[in-house]
């Protein structure tokens, strides 16, 4: 893949979807698609013109985002998009399904409001790790437009450079060891109950937590921050389910694992797998400590390089199945939809994703107040949680498609009861 070809807009360069991305266009529907959002809160009000200029520059450097999706006979594929992506004003209900035509074919959109720049991405394009590189590079370029001198370091790409071919690669295909695969079989999990809102409504509750306080609690139990938060989530969900008084089902939380931590690749496309730690209430009552231990050891075992690769290989293997490959797209979509409906989201209760600490160049740090990460609605599950840390601020975003904020309430009050201060904000004003 020569660099010249990527930059040459007249050449109709096309790309296969990566392994994870193949799922998302198949399961999207008229009211929903899988979207996540990353945003950065600056210290000054955003200047739309400068932002547009920055976007024009960044899209040249990151052709992996300058794509549109097309349907082939057997698979969807990505094609170079020659239109200019335009910045948009933000809305109070993020992550509404893309209208690709109105979005000029793009699978992402850049929005601004007040001091915030937000990036919303259709999951077929990339995952959170790819998205944060784009947002950081965009924010850096925006600050350069405003007269600051920002070096290209700590994950900010150099817009003067040509794009690197490795950024485009499918990590799944490259790193999957297909010698042995792990079964994907999982039991059905508890599903949160609540009053469904109309499809376009998304309630956001943001909890801002000091990193040190959270770290102190997690290390008290000898677990990582992600494990601690997963433990709290499972604990409160267990309580919620018990109060319902019905037959109890396993509580499982889906956690994406970034595969870049095992394999060195510069890919800006999807490269993660998910594991679903959880508890089975039929085995008895769990104390909080027990739940933490469960999550801790499960994570240690399941996210070892060998186990993670066996999971990844399972996904790649089903994509490589000759029967699947020769199936026409329309039939494939139908079957993937069926499988997703009966065994996809029903295997976990909710999702928690932790993007970790965002590093930025020193010169940028003073201009930025915080980063936000949030997941759009799931197709069937009702509550999602996304976490991102910048400096001393851990930002925990709950998004839900039901009226009742039960999970958030129990989650954050658990924090408060355990001495972790929480500051809350939301988008409730606008509904």
């Amino acid at each position, binding site marked *: 893949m020569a660099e010249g070809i990527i930059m040459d807009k007249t050449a109709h360069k096309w790309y296969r979807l990566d392994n994870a991305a193949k799922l998302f266009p198949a399961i999207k529907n*008229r*009211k929903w698609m899988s979207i996540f959002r990353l945003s950065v809160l600056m210290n000054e009000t955003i200047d739309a013109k400068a932002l547009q200029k920055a976007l024009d520059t960044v899209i040249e450097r990151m052709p992996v985002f300058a794509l549109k999706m097309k349907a082939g006979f057997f698979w969807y594929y990505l094609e170079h998009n020659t239109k200019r992506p335009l910045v948009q*004003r*933000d*809305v*109070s*209900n993020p992550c*509404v*399904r893309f*209208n690709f035509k109105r979005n000029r074919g793009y699978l992402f959109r850049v929005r601004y*409001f*007040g*001091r915030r720049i937000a990036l919303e991405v259709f999951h077929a394009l990339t995952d959170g790790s790819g998205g944060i590189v784009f947002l950081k590079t965009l924010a850096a370029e925006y600050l350069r437009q405003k007269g600051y001198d920002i070096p290209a370091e700590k994950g900010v790409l150099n817009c003067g450079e040509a794009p690197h071919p490795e950024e485009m690669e499918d990590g799944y295909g490259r790193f999957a060891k297909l010698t042995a695969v792990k079964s994907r079989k999982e039991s059905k999990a508890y599903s949160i109950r609540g009053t469904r809102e109309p*499809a*376009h409504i998304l309630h*956001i*509750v*943001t*909890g801002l937590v000091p990193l040190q306080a959270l770290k102190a609690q997690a290390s008290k139990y000898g677990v990582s921050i992600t494990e601690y938060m997963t433990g709290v989530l499972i604990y409160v969900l267990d309580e919620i389910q018990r109060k319902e008084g019905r037959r109890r089902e396993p509580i499982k939380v889906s956690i994406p694992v970034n595969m870049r931590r095992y394999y060195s690749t510069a890919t800006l496309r999807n490269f993660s797998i998910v594991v679903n730690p959880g508890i089975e209430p039929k085995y008895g009552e769990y104390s909080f400590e027990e739940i933490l231990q469960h999550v801790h050891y499960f994570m240690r075992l399941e996210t070892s390089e060998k186990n993670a690769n066996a999971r990844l290989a399972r996904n790649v293997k089903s994509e490589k199945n000759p029967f699947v490959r020769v199936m026409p797209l329309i039939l494939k979509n139908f079957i993937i939809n069926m499988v997703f409906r009966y065994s996809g989201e029903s295997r976990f209760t909710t999702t928690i994703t932790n993007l970790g600490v965002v590093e930025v160049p020193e010169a940028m740090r003073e201009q930025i107040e915080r980063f936000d990460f949030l997941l759009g609605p799931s197709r069937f599950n009702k509550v999602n949680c996304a976490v991102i840390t910048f400096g001393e601020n851990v930002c925990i975003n709950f998004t839900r498609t039901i009226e009742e*904020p039960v999970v*958030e*309430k129990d989650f*954050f*009050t658990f924090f*408060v*009861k355990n001495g972790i*201060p*929480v*500051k*809350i*904000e*939301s*988008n*409730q*004003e*606008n*509904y």
Partner: protein
Amino acid sequence: MSYCVNCGVELSDTEKQCPLCGVKVFNPLKQGEAEPEKCYPVRVETIDSAAGRRFWVKIVSILLAVPSLICLVSNLLYEGYLSWSLYAVGGIMVLWAFGVSPFLFKKNAAIKWILIDIAALSLYLYLIEYSSLGTWFFPVAFPIVLMAGLLVLLLTAFVQRGIFKELYTVSAIFFAVGLFLVAVEVLIDFYLTTRIQVVWSWFVLISCMGIAFVFIFIERNKKIKEELKRKLHI
């Protein structure tokens, strides 16, 4: 800086009530302060209903209208009056009423659908009578269609409003079928012989009533109902 008195979380200045528990924020020190900077804009994005149901209703309607028009025109051209084309056009109309019309409505679709079906079926039967020069439409066909339609309409309305529950619905259907068949026989007899004699329909009526009473009995007896559920659950 305000705290929720119920949850103990600190609340951003933008929050007028706690997003977690709904308790109103009241901070006497913050009365009359300037509106804080909002976290989110007011603009709400909606989902376009673009290529939705209405679009497909239009497409299918046009696809059905084309052959109807061809039939009508060719019939007129070659015979000078409408004869066989009425069968075809009527058939297509009934197909449209049964298959396409329910997608026109969002609310009360079932009731409206049944009303349209009654109208379409009656019209079609009238067209058949008209072009085959019969005399059976008003004395027989129309009352039967009307009766069947009204019964379905009533049953649907009752079930929708929750007046009939569970097995009572089943017995109501059996009652309706039994009575309907008696009425059918009466109408046909009256048309053919102008004398009313009930010959065959009472067999059906009595069997239907029997079955209906069995279902009522089961519904009223919780033990038997539970037992049947256990043995026959799917």
